[in-house]
Structure formats: C-alpha cells, structure tokens
C-alpha cells in the first residue's frame, strides 16, 4: 500500500535538489571552513553559499544568518542569549500561551534564574493581541518572543505589529518562525524583528540543521561557547553537509513558493470542506484566513486522537494527533486549551500538514475512509452513547 504522508510538520522528505547538493558535497568536500588551506577553502565557499541562500529566503544580510542544529537551538539561543546579554537592563520577558516547548522550557530555565515571565492569553483562534503586548511592557522588559505561525493550529500572529511596539519601547523582539519559514513568505525587513528562528526540516531540507537570524546590533550572548565560528555567535565546527542541504532547500523554497502556495491552499480547502461535509460534530481549529496554507487542525467529538491515527495508518494515511495519550507527557495540548477547547475535545485532535507531493487523490482517500473510522470509534465510545441518548 502506497503511503499517504500528511505529517510534514514532523519531517519533510528531502527535495531532490537538496539530496543532489548534499551528495555532491559529501563526495567533493571534507575540509574545515575555519582553516585557510586548499582543503578548507572549498568548505568555506560552500558555507558562504548556503548562508547567502538562506539569507535570500528571509531577505536578510548573509552576515546576519547563524547556522546551528535546528529550531530548538535557535529558540534557546534567542531567548537565553538575550536574557544573558541584557541582564543588566532588566529581567522581564513577554511571551504568549501558545508557544512551542522550546520557548516554554527556555523560559522555565530562566524563571529559575530570577527572570520574570508574562505569558499572554490568545483568543479562540489563537491570536495574540498586540495591545496586550504593549500593556505588559515594563521598564524591566528586555525581550518579547511570539511565534510567527503556530505549529498546532496554524494561526499566523500579527508579528509586524508586535515588533513595531517592541521597537517603540526599545525591547528586543524574537519570533519563532520555524513552522512558517519556507512555507509562506517570511521577510525580516517587513516583520521588523531582531531575531527569527528557522529550521531546514520544515522546507524539504535535512533535520538537525537550522539558523537564527540576528539583526545587526542585537545584544545577544552565545548559547554554545567555544571558538569563533559563525561570526562568534555559535561555536563548534559547522555541520556543513546539513548546512549545504539547508541552503539548497532555502533556494528551492524561494523559487518554488509561488507554485507551492496555491496548490497547498487548494488541497487544504478540499480537505477542510470535505471533512466538514461528511463528519458531523467536528471543530476546525485556528484562524480561518490568517493561517498556514498547509496545516489543518480538526477536533473530533467523542473519540481520542491516537486511536484515530492508528486506524488511519491501517489505511496507509500518516497524520499527527495532539491527544494527551500520544504526547508522551499525557497532558492535553497547551495550545488547544489556550484557545478554549475542553480537555475531552482536545483529545480528539488531528493535525494534517500537507506537502508538495500530495495530490487531490490523497485528500479524497482521507475523505473516503475517515468518516467510517470516526463512526467505528464513536460506536465504541461511552461518551458518544451518553450524548446521543440525550
């Protein structure tokens, strides 16, 4: 059975051009880019090229791109690096209730070091109110960190508005753009942020490589201390094979985005409309229009998400759930709860993330099998019986 892969947030297959670039690099280059020799120089050139490619994707200067091990490291660097860099100025950080765990747990660490955190509520669509951000700013505030697009419900936050407020109050602004970069247009000049996190595995590049955009003049301390790599921002010999892959993935994302975007949006609309027409009592999560074009989050009443994904997998469909049972922590998703979803309904949540290889036939297969699977599980569910007995 051919697999229908609808979990591109977990991993994207490598773009054919990315594979090609990485294999070519493996075959021809092994040098250390920090060494000024015939062996090191091809490596240094490959590093420069990748940096230029990634900078072009987000409209940054190449000197403002710092390569690292991925989204979590970028976020840790941004949050902890500013906290250390600006400790003399203050100890207050503003964030939102729907951030990725890399943000939540970086802030958890900082709380132990006597930083104060204000975490803002979101509305039912997951939107942060820029006015609430401004109200939360104190003379002690050193950093605002709000994600560009949420990785569970897809909602796109008003980052440019929030960054303007940050600028007005001379507070550093970071945005976690991991779920968004390479999928939708991301322009650091238009956003006006100081720091932006991105990762290659969200746009057909390899896992384990990412980058932090650091606007010139931003007060930020390194997270990984050591040598002078990455313009003294991130020590350690570069993961050059991964970086070369990320560079090519960034270039392909930039070139192909005008084609990818409408295709993804059309597939998502087909899935969203189809499911809402065929399955009663489901709730679509996230903002209707301010939303990632490839992410569709839906909560199904009376059933639990992990059993739903297992049954879909039996039909060859790979999709993610936000159920507590599947989370490892056995907690309902903090994002869904923050948007006002009840714990029971949050348990029945699926997150579909579409990719450039998906077709209408893939979506139609989901629409064909999912109503039956949902009914099977509902017939097994004690709460379905109760609700429907009145």
């Amino acid at each position: 059975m051919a697999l229908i892969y609808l979990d591109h947030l977990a991993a994207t297959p490598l773009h054919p051009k990315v594979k090609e670039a990485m294999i070519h690099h493996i075959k021809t280059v092994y040098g250390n880019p920090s060494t000024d020799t015939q062996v090191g120089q091809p490596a240094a050139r490959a590093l420069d090229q990748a940096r230029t490619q990634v900078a072009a994707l987000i409209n940054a200067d190449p000197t403002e791109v710092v390569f690292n091990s991925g989204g979590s490291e970028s976020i840790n660097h941004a949050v902890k690096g500013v906290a250390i860099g600006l400790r003399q100025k203050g100890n207050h950080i503003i964030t939102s209730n729907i951030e990725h765990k890399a943000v939540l747990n970086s802030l958890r660490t900082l709380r132990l070091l006597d930083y104060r955190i204000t975490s803002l509520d979101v509305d039912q669509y997951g939107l942060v109110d820029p006015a609430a951000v401004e109200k939360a700013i104190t003379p002690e505030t050193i950093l605002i960190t709000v994600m560009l697009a949420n990785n569970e419900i897809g909602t796109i936050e008003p980052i440019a508005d929030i960054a303007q407020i940050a600028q007005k109050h001379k507070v550093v602004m970071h945005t976690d753009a991991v779920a968004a970069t390479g999928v939708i247009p991301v322009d650091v000049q238009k956003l006006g942020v100081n720091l932006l996190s991105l990762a290659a595995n969200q746009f057909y590049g390899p896992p384990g490589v990412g980058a932090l955009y650091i606007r010139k003049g931003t007060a930020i301390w390194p997270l990984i201390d050591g040598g002078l790599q990455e313009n003294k921002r991130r020590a350690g010999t570069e993961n050059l094979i991964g970086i070369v892959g990320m560079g090519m993935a960034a270039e392909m994302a930039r070139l192909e985005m005008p084609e990818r975007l409408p295709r993804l949006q059309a597939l998502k609309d087909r899935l969203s409309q189809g499911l809402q027409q065929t399955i009663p009592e489901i709730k679509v999560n996230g903002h209707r229009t301010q939303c990632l074009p490839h992410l569709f989050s839906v909560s199904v009443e009376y059933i639990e998400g992990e059993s739903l994904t297992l049954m879909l997998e039996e039909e060859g469909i790979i999709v993610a759930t936000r159920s507590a049972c599947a989370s490892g922590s056995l907690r309902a998703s903090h994002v869904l709860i923050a948007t006002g979803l009840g714990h029971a309904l949050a348990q029945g949540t699926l997150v579909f993330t579409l990719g450039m290889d998906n077709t209408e036939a893939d979506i139609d297969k989901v629409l064909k099998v999912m109503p039956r699977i949902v009914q099977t599980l509902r017939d097994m569910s004690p709460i379905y019986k109760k609700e429907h007995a009145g």
Partner: protein
Amino acid sequence: MAYSPTVMDHFKNPRNVGEILQPDGVGEVGNPVCGDMMSVYIKVENDRLADVKFKTFGCGAAIAVSSMITEMAKGKTLEEAMKISNADVAEALGGLPPNKLHCSNLGADALHSAIKDYLDRKAGKVPAPDLGKEPHHKPGGKGCYCPYCQKEVEEEAPLCIFCGKELPHELEHEH
C-alpha cells in the same frame, strides 16, 4: 510506535464491544479529561460471568486493554475475575509501552467495579451516583510535586532543582 502485535490485533479487532441490555453490573472508570474512559457491562449466571462487554474512549492501548480484559474475564467465576490484575492484562497483551501502563490500569479496575456493582445490587444497596469512579488527577491543573522531597517542581522537568534527584516520567499531581 511500540505496540506489540497482540495489542494491535485487539485494537484492530476488538472483542466484545458494546453494551449489554439490562446488565447485572456496570463499572465505569476514568474520564475523557484524563485521556481514557472505560465502561464494562456484565451478565452473571451461577456466579460466573456469562457475558462481558465494553465501551472505551481512549488510545490504542486503552482499547486493546478493554478488549483483552473482557476476553480474560468471560466464563470465569466472580472470584476468579476479581483476581485478574492490571499487570495480568498488560502481560497477556505482550507488554505495553511504559508511558501507556496507566491505560492498562483501567481494564481490571473497570471489571472489578462492575462486579462490585453486581454484588451491591444483589445485596440491595442503592448505588451512589458516582460509585466506582476512580479518583483521577486533573491534567492541566496546577502543581507537580517531587516524589522525593515533596517540593513543587516545574512540569516535565528532568530533575528536581531542590534535591537534585531525577524525576520520574509521571509526577504526582494535586488531586
């Protein structure tokens, strides 16, 4: 995914799904807030479980556990059925992933609660509204406590910053 072939078999082809009309006993444990909820219905003849059925809201493990416990219990005397433990169910399923062991706790508890319900009815006791419901912690509620020094710790932290001990996967929570 680390489910055993037996778990997947019981998940894909669950035995004894449904309700028994006019059951002799009903046991209900868990609630959807905690992730799992299971109802067990029993029919008793000559102190034996003539029929056992279930309905479950939960993950693959919870459904497989429900299916397995009904199979194990069917035909057994009440006394034998009361001796089936949660560990027996997990073992019969060829083991469960560590973070799923709490799901297996539902199975035997729901069965035992159904048998108690039967015995109470027989003795003429009026069941209290929520009788047989397990107390469960409230996910999302406040307070995670270090099991070694009892101090409140950060959720999902790898270690307790007060006593330095490594924290287990599931912390104690406020009830």
